């Protein structure tokens, strides 16, 4: 109560004040638009849709099973199943999403959609500069804008991507072996062109 | 310069307003405000008479007002303490309802 503590504290703050001008190490602030901290590998922002090959529509892995739409806690995913089918990467004909929108103003980046997807079709992106002047339309992102190629996925999450690629390659090999076995007695039908994994 | 009678009439009006409030309002706090207004009207009289007196250097009017302000402050403190005590007891500050001495 005699005020020594206050004097001690004032000396400490004065030391910090002067020190911030002397040593740059004290200033931990990152001057954002000019400087950026590299993102860690497990960084995640908002989901995106993966496609194989070069054509986002043909290579889209999503089969419109709508599991993610049902699981999404804030209900920010809107999927409409297509009427026709298109072949997936193993060559099997599958539905595809006629409409796949994510409202990222609602999305809470929980990654549940990624966890539940049986087709490895939806993953988390690391892109964070998504600001827009239109908060209703601008943040409702459609199928085309959500699509990212597999090479992008490999770039942002290398470990995760390698694991997924391995699993998908194994599955494809199995499917091909099965197809071969089935095709062995008869001449094989012209195999549907699927983008090779990791093209 | 404004004549003395103008100040006196003004003071009488403020006194009458305060008196009317103190006599007719039901809330005890407003009654107290009315009493304060009456005291202030008297103070205005003292100051006016001092200003128009023949010996203003005697400072009697000023002194009276200073003491009167002191008393008014004490009165307000005690009055409000009484009102709060009454409110605790009767759960009202309405002077019409506070009419029994029995606790």
């Amino acid at each position, binding site marked *: 109560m005699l005020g020594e503590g206050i004097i001690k504290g004032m000396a400490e703050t004065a030391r910090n004040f002067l020190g911030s001008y002397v040593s740059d190490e004290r200033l931990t602030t990152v001057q954002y638009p000019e400087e950026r901290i590299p993102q860690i590998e497990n960084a995640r922002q908002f989901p995106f849709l993966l496609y194989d090959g070069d054509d986002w529509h043909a290579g889209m892995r999503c089969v419109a099973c709508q599991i993610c739409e049902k699981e999404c806690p804030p209900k920010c995913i809107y999927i409409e199943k297509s009427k026709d089918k298109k072949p997936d990467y193993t060559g099997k004909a599958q539905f595809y999403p006629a409409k796949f929108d994510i409202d990222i103003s609602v999305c809470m980046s929980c990654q549940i959609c990624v966890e539940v997807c049986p087709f490895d079709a939806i993953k988390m992106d690391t892109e964070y500069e998504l600001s827009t002047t239109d908060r209703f339309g601008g943040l409702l992102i459609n199928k085309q804008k959500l699509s990212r190629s597999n090479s992008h996925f490999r770039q942002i999450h290398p470990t995760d991507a390698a694991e997924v690629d391995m699993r998908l390659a194994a599955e494809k090999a199995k499917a091909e072996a099965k197809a071969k076995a089935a095709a062995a007695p008869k001449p094989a039908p012209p195999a549907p062109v699927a983008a090779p994994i990791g093209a | 310069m404004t004549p003395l009678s103008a100040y006196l009439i*003004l003071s009488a009006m*403020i006194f009458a307003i305060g008196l009317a409030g103190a006599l007719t309002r039901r809330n005890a706090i407003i009654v107290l405000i009315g009493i304060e*207004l009456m005291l202030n009207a008297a103070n205005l009289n003292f100051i006016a008479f001092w*200003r128009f*007196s023949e010996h*203003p250097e005697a400072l009697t009017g000023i002194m009276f007002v200073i003491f009167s*302000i002191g008393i008014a402050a004490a009165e*307000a403190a005690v009055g409000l303490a009484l009102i709060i005590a009454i409110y605790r007891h009767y759960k009202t500050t309405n002077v019409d309802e506070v009419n029994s001495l029995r606790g």
Partner: protein
Amino acid sequence: MTLPFIILAVLTIAAAVAAMSLRNLIHCALAMVGAFGGLAALYLQLDAQFVGFTQILVYIGAVAILIVFAILLTRGGQVPEKALFSSSWIWGVLVTVAVFGTLAWTIKNSFASQRVPAERVEATVKEIGDALMTKFVLPLEVIGLLLTAALIGAVIIAMRDEVKK
């Protein structure tokens, strides 16, 4: 009558009327502050600087705050639904009219209108202080005693009696 006096007088009277007639108690208290401020300005107009500032310091700085606190402590912040005026209001009005009539009649017939103000009035703080310490020292002491007694009394009255429970 000069223009500043008329303006101040009208404002003070309006504020006083508002303080006595508004429905919301807090509005009444704020209007009362306006009336006290107007009176302080009138004191300044009458060359009583010290008293004017004391009026502001004591009434606006202390009494008004006290009243506002009392209003909130007695839950007077809400607008009452019941009648504003007491049951015997007619007698109050009659008494008021009688009092004002008597006062006005007396003032009108008194020598007050012939009085002229003193030429130059100096009530410096030094003079007031000197007077307080010499001629008026007994009243000053009595006021000090009164204020102390009022302080203790107010605290004791407003204190919750723990003993009864």
